[in-house]
Every structure is written in structure tokens, then in C-alpha cells.
């Protein structure tokens, strides 16, 4: 769990200092934060052994609901 947080802190710190130095627009920060936050949340849940239902399961359920799969 701590390893995951440390890796993400290093990655975010490394990229954010580049973004700030180059004065990137807000949307770059927003998109970057979205991907990293989603990755961090899922990583922490996986590390804690609480695997959330995955996109593969959502897609499978959706295809079954539409009758594409039986």
C-alpha cells in the first residue's frame, strides 16, 4: 500500500514540476489529475485486496443486457 502511494507521489511530482515550469493550461492539469487519481484509487483498492468490478465486467453486463450475448 505504501509502495503504491510512494510511486504515485514520485510520478506526480516529476510531471507536475514540468507542467508548472512550462505554464501548461488548466485542462492539462485536469486531465492528468483525472488519469492519475483513477489509477491511484484502483491501485489502492487492488493493493488492499478489495478488487472493484472491472470495465470488462461492465462491458460484458452491458452486452448481455442488450441481448448481444446470451
Amino acid at each position, binding site marked *: 500500500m505504501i509502495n503504491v502511494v510512494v510511486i504515485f507521489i514520485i510520478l506526480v511530482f516529476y510531471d507536475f514540476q514540468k*507542467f508548472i515550469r512550462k505554464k*501548461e493550461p488548466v*485542462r492539462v492539469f485536469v486531465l492528468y489529475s483525472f488519469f492519475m487519481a483513477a489509477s491511484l484509487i484502483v*491501485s489502492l483498492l487492488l493493493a488492499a485486496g478489495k*478488487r472493484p468490478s472491472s*470495465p470488462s465486467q461492465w462491458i460484458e453486463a452491458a452486452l448481455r443486457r442488450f441481448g448481444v450475448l446470451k
Partner: protein
Amino acid sequence: MEKARISSIQMFLLLSGFLFGSTVILAPAQGAKNDAWLAMLLGGAGGVLLMGIYAAIASLNPSKTLVDILRERMGKVAGNIVAVLYIWYFIHLASLVLRNFGEFICTVTYPETPIVVVIGLFAVVLLYAVNSGIEVIGRISELLVPVIPLVVLIISLSLITVHDFTAFLPILENGIAPVLKAAFGFIAFPFGETVAFLMLFPHLNKKERLTKIVVSSAIISTLLGIMVFFRDTFVLGSDLIAHSTFIPHLTSLLIPGLNVESLVDINLLIGGGVKVSICVYAAARALSQVAGFDDYRKLSGAIFTFCVVLSIWLYENVLEMFNWATSIWPYYSVPLQIVVPLLLLLLSSKKKNKVSKADMKS
């Protein structure tokens, strides 16, 4: 737009590397058992047609990426929404290939190493390649992709003494239905996945050669796939193939007095590397265009991080991965691989007809 240019041979090798990708270890069309060669032949014909459609879209919209074409033909709002779906699709595809690679390496080569370490290290190398630009990926493919058929040839020739040339008989033992189903799967994986190249085709320096390049790489990949199938069937027999996970790897273990196991790893490293790089490049470029900034590199690191996490999150085990790839992936891919490209082709042709009629009147 990025001003990078790639030559015809580089595009051909990128396409071929992408098509070989995970197919060199996963043996597509396996559902048709003995008749997989027939399914590959039919699927290959469909694949050539599908890739021809992608080439036609690119030819009708020269110097435009998939996102530009979507916005121009569907309008800005609808185009951006469909572009976001494609971004998700490319990220999902990259994650699937990363997982294939991780499962293979952790099953056969490094069973003690955690899968996240294998996938993470692979992703770091590929991130460097993607950030170096499409020209660099093209040059790497020029250097490495020719190794794939060479390795297939070495393994095939080394096993010539243990071949049973009647192992693929009888033909159509279970009827035509499993063949057609496997052929459909073979179109979706790997041919339909080349829709990602619509983000790359504008970089081709000689655009008039595009159709020729696309068709020749599809034909060569199909023939190589059929060759791998016959080799594996002649050596292992269809019963053993039906119960195996990584078939080409198992075949490579049977070479008398020679250990070429690592050559199969190299094949996956090259093919999978090209495929993941292209997918992440396409996703990052598309995202930068949708969000309205120039440099796709700004988000490539975040996308790769997400891909690594997604690849671990997607499946609980290797069996779930194989089941999903064969029974769900082809149906999930239809809208983005076939429906939207057909619609784009229709809209692009209509626009071109209008323009040529207007030119004739004036």
C-alpha cells in the same frame, strides 16, 4: 499537427508488427480447432477488406487524423463524443496487450516475479519510445519487426523432423458454424484493431501507396498466422492445442536438443511493444486533439500509468482473460471497428461526390 513523416516500409512494418502483436503467442481462431486455417483464410479476407476501408477513409481525408475526420463528418459535439469512445478503446486495447504480455512472461519465463513489475517495466520502456515520437517508433519497427518472421521460420524449420502432416484432417469435422465464428473473431482480433492507424496514416510520406501497404501487410500477416497454425498442429496435434494456453511457446519447447524458448519471448516483446506503443500514441494524440493542446507527450505518462493499472484490474486470472478475448471482445469491438468506419466512409464519399459535382458545374 505533428510534422513527423514515416516511409512506406516503416508503415508496412508498423502494421505488420501490430498485426503479429499478441497473435504470435495467443493463436487466434483457436475455436475452430482443426479448421482454424480455414477460419484464418476467411477472416484474413475480411480483414483485408476492413483494412481497405480504413485506407479508403484515410485517402478520402488526406492529412487528417481520426479525430479530425470524426469532427468534420459528424459535427464537433458528436465527433468529440465518438473520439472519446475511441480514446477509451485504444487505452483498453493497450491494457489488454500489456496483460497478455505480463501473463505470458509470468507463466513461462519469470514465474516468481509479480506481474505488475513485469508490466510496469515494459511500460516504462514503451513510454520512452512513445515520447520519442512516431518517427522513432517507425525506425525501431524497421529494425526489429523483421525478426518476427525470422524467428517463426527458425522454429518451424527446427521442428520439421517431428511433423505429422495429416494432423489437420479431417476438414470441417464440426461443420461450418465454428469456422465462421472463429473467422469473425479473427477479423476483430487483430485486423479490426488497426483502426488505431487512422491516427498514424496522415504521417505517411507517400500517401498514394497506402492501400498497397495496408493490403500487403494484411495478406502477409494472414499467411504467417496460417503457417504458425500448421506448424503447431503438425507438431502438437489438435487435441493438445485445445488444452494449451500459450501454444507457440509449447511448440518451441519441443525442438530436439535446442532451447529457443526465449525467441518466442522476443517475438512478443517486439510485436506487443509495437502494438502497445501505437495504441498509447493514438490515444494520447486523440486526447490532445479533443482537449485542444498541441503536444500529446504531456499526457502519455498518465495514460501509460492508467494502462498498467487497468491491465491488472481487468481480469482476475489468465483464464478469464482468454475467455473475454475470444467470446466478448469481437462483439464489443464491432461498433468502433466496423460501424463507425463504414459511416465515415459513406459520409466522406458523399462529401467528395458533392465537391466533384460542384467543380464540374463551375
